[in-house]
């Protein structure tokens, strides 16, 4: 049973809710997007959790996660971070500020 090393970078206003622009996590090889975000939530506390998750626990639509260069669909929390046998993953977390209006 190996590990999956995940290099997470925070972009834009996400940096306002974490304490460093980058963090290295070690997760299980079959970790999902949900596992990654919950692990970050544990690390950064309610402020991160409230920004990233809606009240019902789903991912906020203005949060975007890019894993190895590909955008993960917001609803796809069960998406596996790595392919079978892959040991390292790069992820970027974006929180977009509200940009709507007249």
């Amino acid at each position, binding site marked *: 049973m190996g590990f999956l090393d995940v290099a997470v970078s925070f972009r834009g206003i996400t940096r306002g809710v974490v304490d460093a622009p980058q963090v290295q996590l070690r997760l299980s090889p079959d970790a999902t997007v949900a596992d990654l975000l919950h692990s970050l939530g544990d690390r950064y506390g309610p402020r991160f959790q409230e920004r990233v998750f809606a009240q019902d626990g789903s991912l906020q*639509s203005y949060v975007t996660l890019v894993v190895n260069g590909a955008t993960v669909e917001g609803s796809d929390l069960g998406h596996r971070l790595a392919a079978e046998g892959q040991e390292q993953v790069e992820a970027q977390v974006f929180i977009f500020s509200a940009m709507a209006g*007249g």
Partner: protein
Amino acid sequence: MPVGEDVWIPSACSMCYSFCAIKVHRVDGRVVKIEGNPDSATGQGRLCPRGVSGMMLLYDPSRINAPLKRTNPEKGLDTDPGWQEISWEEALDTVSERLKQLRAEDPRKLLAVSSVSFRNDTIFPRLFANVFGSPNSWNSGAGNHCGNAEHLFGALLHSAWCKQPDTDYCNYLLNFGVPCGFGAYYTVPGMAQRMADARERGMKHVVIDPLLSPTAEKADEWVPIRPGTDGALALAMLNLLLNELKVYDASYLKRYTNGPYLIGDDGYYLRDEETGKPLVWDAGDHKAKPYDAPDSEEFVLEGEFSVYGYRGRTAFSLLKDGVKKYPPELVSQITTVPAATIYRLTQEFADAARIGSTITIQGHELPYRPVAVLYFKGAQGHKNALLNAMALELLTEMVGASNVPGGLLGQNSRCLGHPEMGKPSWSPKEGPDGLLVAAGGWPRMANVYPPRSVTPSDSMDLKGMIPTASGSSASTPLVMKEPKRFHMPYSIEFVLHMGANFPMTFGDPLKVADAFQGAFQVSSSLFLDEATYLADIVLPDTCYLERLSLDADWVASNAPGGEWCFHLRQPVVAPGGGRRSISEVILEIARRTGMEDEFYSLLNAYLDLEKPYALEAGQHYTWEEIVDRHYRAMFGDERGIAWFKKHGVLKWPKKVEEVYWKPFIKARVPIYFEWFKRAGEQVANLAQELGIADVIDTASFQPLPHWRPCPSYEESRPEYDLFAFYYRVPIQTFSGTYNNPWLDEASQIDPFTYHISINTQTARQKGIKDGDWVQVISAATGHSIRARARLTEGIHPEAMAMANCGGHWSRYLPLASQPEKGACFEWLVPLDWKHVDIPTLTQDLCVKVKVSRVEGP
């Protein structure tokens, strides 16, 4: 200058946010004419007067041609900044150095200010603020411009930013004051043709509006209404539909709404103990089941039941009972619309809805509901914005006319992509409690469902605290003025401003200026308008005929039916003077501040740029390369900007399941807004905790609509006897076009652009004759404005009205700032919390005024 050149170049207009396709005639290097591009499905070859006049913007001698810095340290709305020309190098150095310092201190101190009028280009500064690390960006339109509550319900009920009637099949359009197809609103010339075709086909158009507007005068019927009472009228119509006529689409309400969900006496859903899902009552089994129980077909829409020992009434029953409070006779007193008219309109609406009928389109048998209810700023720009809009929306929902043939269509709720590439693509989906989650532009903006958490806001717009707020926020200047009171650990110190003349769009200009005065402001602007009076540095921007845009379409520019159509906005001439496009300037600033790689990664995420189109760290991309990648990522390698430059438009037919998507998507919409109630309680608790409960009025967070009058209805001084409101005219866009000589000429001919409209009888009682100068004093601000009176029978006798945002005062706008060029409505509008609808952060535009004759300007 190339001699002998004579070419037509395809591009896209940006004189407003309709983004019509244009063809620009260039002869010997100069633009000589702009026409609509007939190849485009969006505008169908039509242009409005503003679109035709774009070349006068391009060649306006008042345009700015060089970067400027202020020499007068004193700032004020009528204090000349003492502009001094500087080089681009000095301007960019100053800006970049200050930004670097600010980012190191606290990036949240940056605010990006923009406007919807040049939407696609203003996204770029806002993205810059985002990558900079600031949650603060503000479209300054909550006053005059933004649909706020309308957009909220657009997301919740239609998965769209805005709505249009289905002009192909609609037979009865009840229009609460929207200039749809008549000069403003979305997709203007395209909808003008579609509305004209619908009228010729026989669609009846009833306009409810205090003013006999250009829209109302071409309708079948104009129903004058007292300003701000549209929501009350909708409540009376709901009452008649549900309780007297008993006309509603029961099968739609059961299947596609939360109408059958059981609501406990506490106002919340009764939920299944095991799954937590809202319960409905199954008439076959005589028991409560989760709304999505597979073995249940017979949900009860009405009634009261006992579940787990609790009383549960269906959401629909609560609505039906709730609107009984609004009999037409009572509502007639609120609205001044005769009760008989309310009965007749409701009956016509009910008859026209043809509940139960179907139509077959492209082999799909679909519900046919040829009625629609439309509203926008006028009906909802009030203290009661949320509940007014809710009542109006529910009319369409009750008859099942939402996103089906003939009804009200979300403007591009669903796109299944180009036939070859499958992009762009978005689709509404089912979310928590079986309710609709909006797609399209919503996810990257401020999506409202599933509900956001209620937290102390870290942004001036308070959107972190108010989960129902979706549009432009009325709170920004109010919180900017007193950040500590709202527990903001920082204040705004740098304003990056582009394309928004915010002192003329957002309520009391003096108070707006006061909120902005302390910040270092960099404005990228076409003109030295009123907003630049507050700037420290002004950068000369390119106009739409001189620049390449990120794209030239958005969800609300494509027509609701017919064909998808995508365009390119390309420079038709090289930028004049020393002008530079704000997007290129932002890229340069990102470079100088060491943010380039971060900016690229944010752009990749925002624009869905994946390999091989993704922007790579360590590279330098030109603006043209970025735009090209965006187009190629969507439409394939062969359709980059070179293809669009040549062909102008890319179009393909819309599918039935895109336009009339409702029967194809398994998601319900709320007719009972249960989570608003919860949000209200959470907001109230938080406001209490933060010590701001005195300004955060949570009374409107209600699950069902009801009528609350605006504060102006409390005005008791008899001399303040008229309601003032503003309207949009087809000849001007907000405050941005008043210096255009062609539009000025047209505005002089038009009786309602530069004048103040007053009812003839009312004016006579005040001794005012047509053409007299009048002074209008606001009961709320104490400020006054002056303009000539235009007497007309076509306005409610208790109201006076005026157009858009005239009455400029910048001495650098030599045409717009002359006397007799209209007046600025904002002087009448108070900027305070009492006049904000908290759930939607909408600014209340309902003002009582005193009008009297004066001798001159």
